[in-house]
């Protein structure tokens, strides 16, 4: 039988599988950075730190607190699905970054990398719902369904936002999409797709305007019954998803490793951190999207806007070739 997934002749070098550990490390550092920034912003906003430590050190204090916390149990919980849902977010984020090239290196140079990322972000639908379902608790289940309601609104616009760079690059390979932005970054002529993509990243990270699924008005929603290390892994997964989404935007819209002076890999990291900071900052700047009303926004506003963007990109792409 042939080897699965032959590597394409892309401008990217595939590194040895052992480097996946390094990629995980980078993802972890990015997630912790995002959490520290969020802690600093929370302290500045005067919000309750939620623990004994406030400011940028809050994530460490929270982690220490949660690791010592006793695990809460509920009656008739579907423990298998509950744990799968809570731990899965981190795994999905890790699988997302496997196709993101760090400058000229990548772990998994899949010829349909864009689709791979898309499949992983769809997996979040299942995981958040399972987290809400597994606890056998009404508030958690309401949170799970809130996420699905958001999902029905954001997923199609997100998919069509990912289509735009792929059309322009005439490839679904992430390295080729990055290489196709020689001179002009895709963000410059596909701003609508970029904004909708960022909205999608916030959505699959259950972040900012898409946080009602874990909102305080339903006692914490999908994570209502999560405690101790389960909650820590769930929260870490959210930050990791945010970081993975920011990292994927770099080859898709922000020219990959292109930039003066610094080497390619450094530019990828700089752009990722910058975008991640914007996403974290936006959390306190945008109102929540009501799950019962967002679907119409997604289908009546975002979807037509992003389809129009795809049309413009397709016409330009045909005109250039």
């Amino acid at each position, binding site marked *: *039988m*042939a*080897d*699965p*997934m*032959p590597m394409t002749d892309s401008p990217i070098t595939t590194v040895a599988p052992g480097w996946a550990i390094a990629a995980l490390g980078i993802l972890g550092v990015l997630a912790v950075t995002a959490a520290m920034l969020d802690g600093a912003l929370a302290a500045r906003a005067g919000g309750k730190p939620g623990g004994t430590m406030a400011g940028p050190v809050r994530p460490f204090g929270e982690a220490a607190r949660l690791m010592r916390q006793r695990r809460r149990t509920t009656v008739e919980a*579907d423990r*298998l*699905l509950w744990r799968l849902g809570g731990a899965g977010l981190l795994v999905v984020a890790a699988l997302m970054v496997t196709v993101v090239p760090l400058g000229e290196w990548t772990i998994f140079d*899949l*010829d*349909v990398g864009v*689709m*791979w990322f*898309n*499949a992983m972000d*769809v*997996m979040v*639908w*299942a995981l958040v*719902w*399972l987290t809400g*379902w597994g606890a056998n608790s009404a508030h958690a*289940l309401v949170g*799970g*369904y809130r996420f*699905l309601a958001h*999902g*029905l609104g954001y*997923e199609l616009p997100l998919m069509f936002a990912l289509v735009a760079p792929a059309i322009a690059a005439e490839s*679904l390979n992430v390295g080729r999409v990055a290489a196709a932005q020689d001179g002009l970054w895709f963000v410059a002529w596909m701003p609508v797709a970029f904004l909708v993509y960022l909205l999608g990243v916030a959505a699959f990270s259950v972040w900012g305007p898409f946080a009602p699924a874990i909102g305080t008005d339903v006692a914490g929603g999908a994570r209502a019954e999560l405690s101790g290390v389960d909650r820590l892994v769930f929260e870490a997964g959210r930050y990791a998803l945010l970081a993975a989404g920011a990292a994927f935007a770099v080859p898709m819209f922000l020219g990959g490793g292109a930039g003066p002076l610094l080497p390619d890999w450094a530019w990828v990291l700089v752009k990722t951190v910058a975008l991640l900071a914007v996403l974290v900052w936006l959390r306190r700047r945008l109102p929540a*999207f*009501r799950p*019962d*009303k*967002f*679907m*119409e*926004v997604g289908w*009546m*506003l975002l979807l037509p806007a992003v389809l129009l963007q795809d049309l413009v990109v397709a016409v330009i792409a045909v005109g250039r070739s």
Partner: protein
Amino acid sequence: MITDIAFWGIGLVAVLGGAAVFYVNSMARATYALALSFVAVGLQVLFLQQNYVGVVTILMMLMEMAIMAVYMVMFMGMNPALMPMSMVHSNKTAIAVALTTFLALATGILMVDWPTRRGSPPPDVTMALGEALMGPKMLVMAVISPVMVATIVAGVVLAAHRTRYDRFGDDLKQRPADDPQPGGVGR
């Protein structure tokens, strides 16, 4: 060797996941057992070098199973879906049909003369598959798609008990519309 073992291992996961759908006693477990089975099939398709088809299979099936959770509470009247329940019914008929089908198919597999491979696979098997499936029938497909969409829309319109007169009043001038569930863009 390793790829062979992985291929057969994933195949086993697909079959066992499919069987688990009928064995478990909760809608959620049955749904995600089916999702696991389909993800395994998608991974197997990757081994056939149909990368696009494989990843799309994983994507669509995960999304479909999440949507299934929505249907679970939308269409199952008193929400038995949220309680433990049996995933099987009409057991005797089902067993008879399943066994007959299995025996018929297995006999066919054993009896038929399998052809030997002619030629070699093309470099881009996904493209070749697309050509083989759609190539000469592209016009038919292009015509059928809008007809299918129109059928779906017409079906929903006929099935919905509320009409535009309920929404906009008898003279269709009432704004905003009178909806039981207001939308997000204020139509």
